């Protein structure tokens, strides 16, 4: 990477504010042809906003964007695309009701006699798909395909035109290892053709594998620009989160110091549901963190939903404080002090168009009942307390939840449940898709809650996290509980071995 070619994209002094949030402040950014450039930063650092400023979704309040030396001001993604900037967003932004071919070529369909030439379109789409090694029927409708395939179709759409700049905003989050390798192969081909690729990913391994240069953002400001080869991970992480990793390591000590001899709070015996999870026994004590480990589809979420009453069990029973609880639905679970924070952040719990304060107040008021209104001062105090406790950024109670980053939305969702002061908190993938700093904070919060006597059922796909945080680990495989381990003496390898396990059915056994 010599400095010889001029940058294809240059952004200077970009600032942009949303209601209550300064998303970007005086950010400079350069992108050279023929490089893979990683944009790094925590959730809420302004990565997505910077990308959307480049691709014409947002217009900067101040600052200048230039493309190939000429100043540009895109007023829509269409204009940016026309100028050669193609984007693949984190969430598949395609139309599931249309065919694969249409999704690839919509807006630039081959035409004949004024109408769309469908057979030429299918042919052209098949060519583009073949170029990236995807073999699906272009005439099939997009909604029939799994998300990973849809993501590849989105990439096919991006490269179906001659693009000079390809923006990939977390394209790998829904791909498996093989698909990621395939994507990287395609990215290298495009890079060697001279395309400038802007790449965002939370996976450091991937960033180090594919990128040539990187720009680091924190809290909407530029922290640094480096050649990837010249910066080690520790430095990078320190730049991203602006503090040491010591915070993460402190958690482990806390887990060890905590004693877990509380009374049994929730006891499930023989609880099960056909097709979801086979009957299992589970005890959760007050002040204890129980981790659920298992692959996707092993029954983690299903188990949690049974405990919360979101799905009806067809066998077994649940005891709370030794007394049987009739789980007719989430309402009865909530009344018994069980809270369930779903993995589906958007669909669950948060009202995106309301402010942080309103979202929290909604939960408080619901917990108290409408006959006992909260005073303005109590509300402010509580909101203040949770903003601070969870380090929600921006710490402005009037910021709209919609404008927050994924990690901060997750914190607001957590706060929503915490204000109801649950006795058992079920967290389903609370740290998915959020950055290291926010992850550490949420993990710290979980241990702090446990220390105060709350029972936590912690579900995560990341085994390191489960092992670090849990006092006890329940291992699931193929919709069956296969083991229960002592968290303080168990290593990740041991859990992996159990999850991988043999195919032969083995008797349920407590290993610890």
């Amino acid at each position, binding site marked *: 990477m010599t400095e010889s070619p001029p940058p294809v994209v240059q952004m200077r002094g970009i600032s942009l504010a949303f209601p209550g949030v300064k998303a970007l402040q005086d950010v400079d950014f350069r992108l050279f042809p023929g490089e893979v450039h990683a944009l790094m930063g925590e959730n809420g650092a302004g990565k997505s906003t910077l990308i959307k400023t480049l691709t014409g979704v947002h217009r900067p309040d101040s600052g200048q964007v230039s493309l190939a030396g000429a100043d540009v001001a895109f007023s829509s993604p269409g204009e940016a695309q026309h100028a050669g900037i193609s984007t693949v967003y984190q969430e598949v932004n395609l139309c599931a*009701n249309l065919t694969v071919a249409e999704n690839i070529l919509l807006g630039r369909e081959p035409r004949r006699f004024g109408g769309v030439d469908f057979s030429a379109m299918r042919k052209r789409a098949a060519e583009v798909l073949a170029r990236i090694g995807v073999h699906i029927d272009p005439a099939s*409708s997009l909604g029939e395909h799994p998300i990973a395939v849809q993501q590849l179709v989105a990439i096919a759409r991006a490269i179906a035109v001659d693009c000079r700049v390809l923006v990939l905003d977390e394209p790998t989050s829904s791909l498996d290892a093989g698909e990621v390798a395939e994507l990287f192969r395609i990215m290298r081909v495009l890079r060697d053709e001279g395309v400038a690729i802007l790449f965002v990913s939370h996976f450091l391994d991937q960033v180090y594998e594919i990128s040539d240069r990187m720009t680091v953002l924190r809290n909407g400001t530029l922290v640094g620009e480096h050649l990837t080869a010249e910066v080690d991970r520790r430095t990078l992480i320190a730049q991203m989160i602006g503090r040491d990793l010591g915070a993460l390591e402190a958690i482990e000590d806390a887990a060890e110091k905590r004693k877990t001899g509380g009374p049994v709070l929730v006891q499930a015996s023989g609880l099960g549901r056909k097709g979801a999870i086979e009957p299992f026994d589970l005890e959760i004590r007050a002040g204890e963190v129980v981790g659920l480990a298992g692959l996707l589809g092993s029954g983690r979420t299903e188990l949690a939903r049974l405990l919360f009453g979101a799905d009806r069990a067809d066998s077994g029973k649940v005891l709370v404080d030794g007394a049987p609880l009739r789980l007719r639905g989430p309402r009865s679970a909530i009344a018994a002090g069980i809270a369930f924070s779903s993995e589906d952040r958007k669909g669950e719990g948060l009202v995106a168009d309301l402010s942080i304060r309103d979202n929290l107040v909604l939960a408080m008021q619901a917990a108290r009942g409408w006959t006992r209104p909260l005073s303005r001062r109590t509300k402010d105090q509580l909101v203040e307390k949770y903003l601070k406790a969870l380090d929600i950024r921006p710490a402005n109670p009037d910021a709209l939840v919609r404008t927050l980053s994924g990690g901060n939305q997750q914190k607001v969702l957590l706060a929503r449940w915490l204000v109801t002061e649950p006795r058992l908190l079920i967290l389903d993938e609370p740290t998915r898709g959020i950055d290291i700093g926010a992850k550490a904070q949420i993990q710290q919060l979980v241990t702090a809650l446990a220390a105060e006597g709350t029972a936590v059922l912690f579900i995560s796909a990341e085994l390191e996290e489960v092992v670090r945080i849990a006092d006890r680990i329940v291992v699931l495989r193929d919709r069956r509980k296969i083991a229960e381990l002592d968290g303080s003496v168990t290593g990740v390898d041991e859990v992996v071995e159990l999850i991988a396990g043999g195919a032969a059915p083995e008797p349920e056994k407590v290993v610890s």
Partner: protein
Amino acid sequence: MTALAQRVPSRFLPVLATVVLFVLAFGVGSARYDGFASGQVVANLFIDNAFLIVLAAGMTFVILSGGIDLSVGSVVALSTMVTASGLQAGWPVPLVIVAVLLIGSTLGLLMGLVIHKFDIQPFIVTLAGMFLARGLCFLISVESVSIKDKTFRAVATAAIELPGGVTITYNVVIALLVVAAAMYVLHRTRFGRTVYAVGGNESSALLMGLPTTRVKVGVYVISGLCSSLAGLLFSLYMLSGYGLHAVGMELDAIAAVVIGGTLLAGGVGYVLGGLAGVLVLGTIQTLISFQGTLSSWWTKIVIGVLLLVFIAVQRTMVRR
């Protein structure tokens, strides 16, 4: 049935269901009543519902884009009023036609712009448009105005003889031309495909760089144009203009489109579905008039039941 379901893509099933329903309803009529199974009864279905076919074609665009247009019935009434009073004032027929079509499309354009610029729900904006158009009718006249123009009457009463002694009117020809044009635009042009994209996922369509503004405003212009054209056909059918013509016809149009398998949420449906929906409604009406003793209001009850059933069926299909 399962073999059929495997061969036909599931997106065609709702339309097929409507066609099957039409055939069934017609079969029942043919079996029970003498003279029901004649070509002229079928032709009459088209003659008596030509304006509704045109309305449904326009409404299909709007609903596919994820919107709704409640103003179409009132625009039909306004069009009959402008036609009748224009002719009464001695305007030449071509001028009347151009004026009516211009008024309809302009109203559509205005509603589309308001919906887009101020980001207001189409339901509210077109509800306002509905009141506006209905009110304008009575500004012109509170009485019914009959049409006496010779050319106009000649076109209205002219019969086109088809093989087999079946006759149709020019209305039917125009309506079928509109359906053909709508099918071409919606299914074969870039604009039409963008309508589907916007209805499927508007923010995706925007991020894909599609001209969503043009489409979102355009569908209301098309619907307005279709409504005013339907108004002209209605004038030919009734030979009068009246502010109380076509009351509630927007709901018939919406019902026909939904029964024709178009998802109210947008993104899924076909123009032919709307046509099939109109024919189902027409057949039910014919059945009830052949039956002779039932009040014509039974039509509404049957339509209501059908609508519920179809929406429930669609819902389960979407969930699958």
